[in-house]
């Protein structure tokens, strides 16, 4: 079967600096892959490249059957990214945010409600503006948005950061469910114990390259 993500000799540049220096990586469908490595190794860039935010300077990059080196917008609607930023609107309530991001992917009201439930955000908390939430609660809201979008490829950058124990359990369970349902998950994390138990496979990112 064709891999969901296929990178071969990928070079990507940010502000003149080669954040990725010839990365090779294949990720299979249904896999949970952990990316680990020191700060500045290129984990975030790899995820942003797969999401079509960072252009491919050289090399071959296929995501979900789309050649994103030729057109990096091609695969976007089937990809979900949780980056360092949460992508939330601070003035809107939790429920409004999840409803908006769900709607961009055509989610129904039931699906939005289920996503809120999944991340423990239903009830009183749903009506609170994001601006008043703690960092962990914002992370939960962003995850609920991601769940509502039902992406085929999940890209998560330090998803555990800021979450409490219950939040981490919810996150891990959600990722396992998604992978079992056929989604592919790529996680960049420093929480090696936690994410290592979750992942099917671990790769190291060093100096903008991937080591198995």
């Amino acid at each position, binding site marked *: 079967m064709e891999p969901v993500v296929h990178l071969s000799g990928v*070079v990507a*540049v940010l502000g*003149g600096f080669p954040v990725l*220096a*010839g990365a090779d990586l294949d990720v299979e469908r249904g896999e949970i892959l952990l990316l680990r490595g*020191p700060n500045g190794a290129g984990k975030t860039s790899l995820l942003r490249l797969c999401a079509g935010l960072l*252009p491919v300077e050289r090399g071959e990059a296929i995501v979900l059957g789309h050649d994103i080196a030729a057109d990096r917008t091609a695969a976007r609607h089937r990809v979900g990214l949780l980056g360092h930023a949460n992508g939330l609107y601070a003035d809107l309530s939790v429920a409004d945010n999840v409803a908006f991001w769900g709607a961009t992917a055509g989610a129904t009201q039931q699906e939005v409600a289920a996503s809120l439930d999944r991340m423990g955000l239903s009830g009183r908390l749903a009506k609170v503006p994001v601006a008043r939430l703690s960092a962990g609660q914002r992370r939960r809201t962003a995850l609920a948005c991601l769940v509502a979008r039902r992406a085929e490829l999940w890209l998560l950058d330090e998803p555990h950061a800021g979450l409490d124990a219950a939040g981490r359990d919810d996150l891990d369970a959600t990722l396992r469910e998604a992978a079992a349902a056929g989604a592919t998950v790529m996680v960049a994390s420093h929480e090696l114990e936690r994410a290592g138990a979750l992942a099917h496979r671990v790769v190291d990112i*060093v*100096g903008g*390259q991937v080591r198995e």
Partner: protein
Amino acid sequence: MPDLSPVSIARPTGTRVSRVLGIASLVGIVWLVVFGLFLSPNDATQKAGVRILYIHVPSAWLAYLAFIVTGISSAAYLFKRTRSLTWDRIAGASAEVGVLFMGVTLVSGSLWGRISWGIYWTWDSRLTTTAFLFVTYIGYLAVRGLGGTHQQRARRSAIIALLATLEVPLVHFSVKWWRPLHQQESVAEGKLNGLMLFTLFVGIIAFTLLYVWLVLHRQRVLAMEDALDDQGLDTALAERRAEGAQI
């Protein structure tokens, strides 16, 4: 006389053709100064003021031509079959030269207005459009400096240049209708005698050659700067890979 000697210093971006162009435009400028300041007579009504026109009219004409070239090159870049960063660099080089020419045009025009009309500025449609064009293309150059990859820069600035090109007629007509009783456009071409017309003609030739020479060189400097970025990437890539090998 300003020092323009292209022969001695043009080597990095010079070729035989550009050297011939450079010498020709330099000779043209010298001719223009000789004819414009000394040999041509004073005008009956404008007196010495007419001498400003010998540089004002050519620089204005070339400024407009420069922006037309920017518009055409931008369209050529956006058109898939002719997509090449060379078009983008020609557009950028031409806009820079255009802003330069338009800047000096506004200065020489104001000085001419001061001695012919007694005022530095009037809200005549031609002047106002020119001033807007000047500011618009300064904005275009700012957009070119926004960063990103070469292709991103090229796409973004090509779109802005095309929008600017389409907007110029709107500005022109709105200003024209805004002031229906605008100043007579009194460059008075009909009243110039033979030697005056010849001087103006020399000016237009000299400035056209100068424009081509400037854009040719500037475009090559931009190409070298782009190439330098790409070369920097190769060294940086090697360093980045070595950083991986250490661990």
